[in-house]
């Protein structure tokens, strides 16, 4: 499903731009025009063919095994741990797991680094974050394999993806785009039918970036045309700032808002004052 989104974001615009480049407004002779038309047709065919091979299903890629070294390592890991569910060529297995063609390395790295994948056998309402089975390096290798199979969104290099981010802009973007599910506090919240948006506390820069790129499960995809890479860095800077921010008003009550405040006013405020009334006035 993510395939269409990411292809829409990365593929066609580039091809379209190239097309415009060739159709310059220069006056030419008829022969020249014919010649150009022929060349254009040829080029168009090459481009289309190229795009086709780039996005062709994995079986084709297997026929031409020119995987990079990392991708080969990744393929080995994939075949061991993921193929049972996602199929030997990541084309998906009906009623078990979706195809990974075109999800991109970002999605794989997110799923594996947060421990969501490999999923546990009995399916719950939602695949949850758990202790990861693989190292970051292994996750990247699997990512490289899926990337080379089918393309898709990729993470930028490096682990510090908040650098150059504007916290204030990020806060504004976070409140508009993310708070409806993850709450102002970044602590998460309930969605319908037992699903939920998790707390962002444990997420690393790369995981946040990847989550936006891939939109895991019930989270929408925030492609680069919706939230630019710079804005993603802003959002990450904001989320990570909030984690370090101490509550200036005292104990923050988990920043869950008026619900814990209600508990405090009754359990701490009223109860302590009731003890005082008993002390002052007695019971008879």
């Amino acid at each position: 499903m993510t395939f269409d989104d990411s292809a829409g974001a990365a593929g066609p615009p580039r091809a379209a731009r190239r097309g415009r480049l060739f159709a310059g407004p220069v006056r030419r002779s008829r022969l020249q025009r014919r010649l150009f038309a022929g060349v254009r047709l040829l080029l168009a065919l090459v481009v289309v063919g190229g795009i086709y091979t780039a996005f062709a299903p994995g079986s084709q890629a297997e026929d031409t095994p020119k995987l990079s070294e990392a991708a080969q390592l990744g393929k080995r890991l994939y075949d061991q741990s993921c193929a049972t569910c996602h199929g030997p060529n990541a084309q998906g297995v009906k009623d078990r797991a979706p195809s990974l063609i075109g999800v991109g390395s970002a999605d794989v790295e997110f799923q594996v680094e947060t421990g969501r994948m490999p999923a546990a056998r009995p399916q719950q309402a939602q695949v949850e974050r758990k202790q990861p089975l693989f190292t970051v390096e292994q996750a990247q290798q699997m990512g490289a394999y899926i990337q080379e199979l089918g393309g898709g969104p990729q993470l930028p290099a490096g682990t510090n993806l908040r650098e150059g981010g504007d916290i204030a802009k990020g806060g504004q973007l976070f409140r508009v785009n993310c708070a409806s599910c993850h709450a102002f506090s970044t602590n998460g919240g309930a969605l319908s039918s037992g699903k939920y948006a998790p707390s962002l506390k444990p997420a690393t820069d790369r995981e946040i970036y990847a989550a936006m790129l891939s939109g895991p499960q019930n989270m929408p995809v925030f492609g680069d045309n919706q939230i630019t890479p710079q804005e993603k860095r802003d959002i990450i800077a904001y989320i990570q700032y909030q984690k370090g921010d101490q509550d200036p008003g005292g104990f923050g009550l988990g920043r869950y808002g008026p619900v814990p405040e209600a508990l405090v006013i009754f359990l701490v405020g009223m109860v302590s004052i009731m003890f005082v009334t008993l002390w002052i006035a007695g019971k008879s």
Partner: protein
Amino acid sequence: MKQSKLDLAGLPAKAAGEIDDRLQVSSPLRRLLNKVFPDHWSFLLGEIALYSFIVLLLTGTFLTLWFDPSSNEVTYHGPYTPLQGIPMSRAYESALQLSFEVRGGLIMRQMHHWAALLFMAAIVVHMLRVFFTGAFRKPRELNWIIGVLLFWLGFVEGFAGYSLPDDALSGTGLRIASAIMLSIPVIGSWVTTSLFGGEFPGHEILGRLYIAHVLLVPAILLGLIAAHMGLLVKQKHTQWPGPGRSNDNVVGIRMFPGFAAKAGGFFMIVFGVIALLGGLFQINPIWLFGPYEAAVVSAASQPDWYVMFLDGSTRLMPPWEARFPLWPGHHYTLPPLFWPTVVLPGVLTMLPLFYPFIEARKFKSKASHHLLQRPRDVPTRTALGAMALAFYIVLLISGGNDVIADKFDISLNAMTWAGRVGLLVLPPLAYWITYRACLGLQQHDREVLAHGVETGIIKRLPNGAFVEVHQPLAPVDEHGHPAALPYAGWVVPKKMNRVGALVPTIKGFFFPIEEPAKPAYPSEAPVSPAPTREGITSGKQ
């Protein structure tokens, strides 16, 4: 003639005499100072509300010195990094300045908000006390009505305050309020546009809310509180029945000095608790919510607890639209929001307002009542109260159902359905259980009065049966049967140490404040010490 030396010791009396000569205050003042307050902890609940209101006035006045209820757009350049350069209303900016730049501003804001929560909590608990003890009966119906109005005014005042800082959370609340007003048939859109001065949010609402919050509503609150207290002095306190207490007197301590000292101390303690809450627990961190923008809605957006039950009723309401055909091709649609947020609060205002009269009619009672009733002695009322409480608590919990669902890993849909079912099932269940419990407690009281207190001593009769020895409460006649004791409407002693079997407990809450009294007859406790027995063995030895 020589001026006599100034008589310092006589000065206060002389000054007071001079004042009285001019103002004639001594006899009304004496009446007031001699007013008697019964000594029972449950009579102090209303005072908590009074003292929190005073704290609200004090802290609120501090806030007005810096708060600016203006919706003019400004750009933030204060010390809070995550908002720097963000456009916002001046109101929100000034609330941020209060939090981060004004010395002591944050604790004042937090104390103000905690005091608001405590004010409402104390009002509700006080109301429950008054209800369950029947203190609202004739002649005090008017004070009960004032109390109900105080609750709703506090509700409005709190909601207005919550909306003032113009952060995203208060904006969400205001938007819901405008949707609620719009749902009223016929006059809805007129009411909304006149209150907001146009479409929501508009530029008028903050200023209007501010005037309402710092002037109009507090003034009405103050007036009603004064009337409430005035009626209390005029009609005197109710009291629990007991030795020497009747429908015609009040037993307790005088206003001055005993009660004044206690009340002054109590005020300080309430103030202290609010200050501790304000200093230790963060409340309403508006800087996290950001300025109000129409596009911003957060998960876990809740109102303060006293509004939460209406949020709960909205969450539980199924999306039923009522359609009324007007003329061919046209119909009027009543939004589902109308029922839980307009009709329900309407009912919840009217029912309590008229309850004293309904009950008097039902019980055919025209007399004045100055003695309180123990909840168990009026099972119908107590059960009705429990039913209302169950209804309210289900709504309250449902108001926070998304947070509860999230934190306790429950499905939100399950919470909603549990709330819907609970709202229908739990109140009748609470009624039935409470009713039975009241009857059971009554019966036990009567039993103890007739047969005496259970001593815990088991006696074996010659025929082998075991019986428990009872300590009669009344003198026994020549056959050893205790005389019948009437029920006096007050606690029946049910433990031996309540009738003096043990040395009375020593007074003092944290540590003894009196010497333990020496028993009058050293070993003559009413129950003679158990005879020394031989050890019971299995018989094998």
